[in-house]
């Protein structure tokens, strides 16, 4: 799975980091950084993508 972030849309809410801390981290700019671009396809990453309040994350197979 490949994960990308639209940093313009991200508001740094950190919901994704809470759900999948190995994959997402809110960095010192106040927006999220993807730590692993091709994480294992586990439910947590999917939840994070789905629950991001601003729709800033996307995942492709």
């Amino acid at each position: 799975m490949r994960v990308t972030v639209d940093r313009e849309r991200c508001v740094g809410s950190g919901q994704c980091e809470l759900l999948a801390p190995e994959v997402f981290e809110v960095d010192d700019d106040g927006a999220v950084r993807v730590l692993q671009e091709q994480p294992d396809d586990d439910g947590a990453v999917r939840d994070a993508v789905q629950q991001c309040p601003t729709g800033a994350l996307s995942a492709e197979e």
Partner: protein
Amino acid sequence: MTVSPQDVDLATVDLSDRDWWTTPPAYRHAAFDRLRREQPLAFFAEPDIPGLPAGPGYHAVTRYADLEAISSQPAVFCSGRGAVSMQDVPAELHEFFGSLISMDDPRHAKIRRIVSKTFTPRMLERTLDSVRAIVDDVLARARAKAEAGDGTIDVVADVAAPIPLRVICDMMGVPEEDRPGVLANSNIVLSGGDPELIENDDPLTAFLTAGMEMAALMERLAAERLSDPRDDLTTALVRSEVDGERLTHQEIASFFILLLVAGNETTRNAISQGLLALSEHPDQWARWAADPGLDRTGVEEVVRWVSPVTWMRRTATRDGEIDGHRFTAGEKFLLFYAAANRDPEVFADPQRFDVSRDPNPHVGFGSKGPHFCLGAHLARRELQVTFRAIFDQLPDLEVTGPPDRLASSFVNGLKRLPARLTGDR
């Protein structure tokens, strides 16, 4: 108590009437049920508040799907004309009190960035140890008070109010001697005009004075931290910048009001009403207390059940259509999170309090969109730590009387909740 939606006469429901909000929650939820089914965008006139012109009225959004659709289109449904007041208030005023809540992009994005970088999950994990220490101390004091007296405590004053207040004041570095004033002022700002909390009957002046006092305190702290940095959020806020821009002291003051009001009162009400819900559902209390594995879902259910913030407002920036309703620019929509959180389209058996509910996509922290609560992790962790500590340290806590409800449509609050520490464990 159960109330069936059929028992509700919709003609008597007035969401603008402060007294309506002191009716029992079961009744209010039955009313929301009927609104959701029969008039999902019901129209209400605005309340009369001395000193403010009455506006055109608003639509009460009670369906989860409509609420999500509106929240996720911030350009069409803006916050910048005021998100926390039914009436239009002067722009300086709502920005001052609402801070980020009443802003739109690009300003919202910029300030939210500055704040979010000082408020990351990583930063908050570091404050968790101090949260634990605060919770332990507050519970020990509650126990000492009960033992020194007749065994009774007030859950609100002795448990629920001091925890978030101390957490936030610690994070911001507010000195001990300023904290009682902070509590009193934050009560006024969020009183919803409840006459018991506002001494004369001029709520507007009382709000303004309380806000000014908090702002003055924060401006003083911000100035101190610039020359004498410490390891606190105020220091991080005065120093951080985005695109070369820093927060002004006034913006920091507004943000502090937001934190106090949004973070302090909501967490307090989640604790007190969570305990009330647990005492009304003793089976759920027993299950959760026995199983720390339920801390996460238990807290989510408390937030869904209580919905500490009942609504926020959006204002249409242009003409359009939602759920078959054609709206024009300027129309107001109140997003009733409390109603959406019991929408049977989304939640199975929504009127059941179930501490193991999972998934639980409640909108207690807001719905999709840029205004999702920035304190959500802090609140979640704080609540998890608090409920676990109560189960461990006050297992003999017993709610003994009906709560005293805050007369406010906006904050689902308790003023008092009598309880007893029975001494049996």
